[in-house]
């Protein structure tokens, strides 16, 4: 497997809590190194206490070992560089929106536009949501509660 092929394969590994978005889209893959049948993957946890890390590690290993080309996979989690929400790719932001989660907006910490109708100026209902990395908003135009990724 070449490094490009590894990156492509990792696009099939999704965030367990947002099944439409891959770990590559989320900006969680920092570096990939291939040498002699061994693949090293450096990953950045979105949150320090993210309970999905073990699951993500297993999924990465399973995907890369599939097909028997790769002999060994080493996944390491790093905090340097820190994962920030700026690392989510443009494609990742689109996919988050399609899933009904507003991606974080650049600039000051303001509510993002509603992922359903695009209206700005939503109310913050709760700074915490179904996972530690999400906020719950309410759109005053389409009267729809929606989730947003925290800007961290």
């Amino acid at each position: 497997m070449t490094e490009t092929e590894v990156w492509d394969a990792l696009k099939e590994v999704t965030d367990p809590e947002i099944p439409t978005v891959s770990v590559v889209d989320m900006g969680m893959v920092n570096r990939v190194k291939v040498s002699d049948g061994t693949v090293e993957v450096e990953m950045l946890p979105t949150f320090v206490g993210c309970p999905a890390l073990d699951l993500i590690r297993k999924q990465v290993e399973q995907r890369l070992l599939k097909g028997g080309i790769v002999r060994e996979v080493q996944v390491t989690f790093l905090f340097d560089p820190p994962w920030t929400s700026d690392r989510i790719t443009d494609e990742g932001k689109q996919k988050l929106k399609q899933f009904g989660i507003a991606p974080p907006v650049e600039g000051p910490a303001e509510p993002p536009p509603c992922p359903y109708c695009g209206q700005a100026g939503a109310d913050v209902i709760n700074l915490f949501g179904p996972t530690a990395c999400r906020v719950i908003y309410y759109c005053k135009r389409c009267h729809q509660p929606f989730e947003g990724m925290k800007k961290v």
Partner: protein
Amino acid sequence: MKMEQDTRITDGQKFETALKYWLACLADDELTLGHRDSEWLGLCPDIEGDVAFSSIAQDEVGHAVFYFDLLHQLGEGDPDRLAFSRDQHLRRNAILLERPNGDWAYSILRHYFYDLFDDLRLQSMESSSYAPLRQGTQKIRREEYYHLLHMKTLFSRLGSAGGQARERMEEALLKVWPDLGDLFDFGPYEKELLEFGIISLSGSEVRRRWEEQVRDALLSIGFEWPGEIPSSSRSGRRGEHSSDLQPLLDTLCEVYAIDSNARW
């Protein structure tokens, strides 16, 4: 996790002793409060409170795991063992955090005051000579920002509501106050921690900055400064805990204690 080799580690036992003690303080603070936060699940005055406290508990326990992992890398037992099978006299958390949740006002006030303290403590590690701590705390601080914002909002809301909310906040303030001296105690190795550059602010400097912020916060809801923080007769950092800790540990460790070798 990758660890940068710090030349000062080989400098001697002193660095490692001070660092380990400090990491245990950090881990135990976060674990103890995280557990108290989890006790609110299903009992909060509103569903948003429930969701928030669950996430916050998860964050705090996650931070504790991060610190326990660092201890493990330094040769201490595995994180589960550190969390679930240490006697109370080896626990380094501040006494304030082991207190039962009490009512909503007490829980919010305590958390807000702790989050303000923790933010300053995290700041004091942002340029730490111990790279894993420096990197982790930079990340943790970005998460704690939301805890602080949430608690500040609730603090202001309860404090300005008048009636029973205000009365309970006044009671909570009087209850929290005597436990604060212990919170700012940085333990027996404070001097070494500063000398080695593991932290950049002393406990008394953190306290000075904290008092400044809390004075303003209290003023903003029309509360008076309760007077000088009394010095504590007991030190949680040195394992001298109140009778509130053991019942907490009995619950926290109950499942682990059934079979400490079970694999999950």
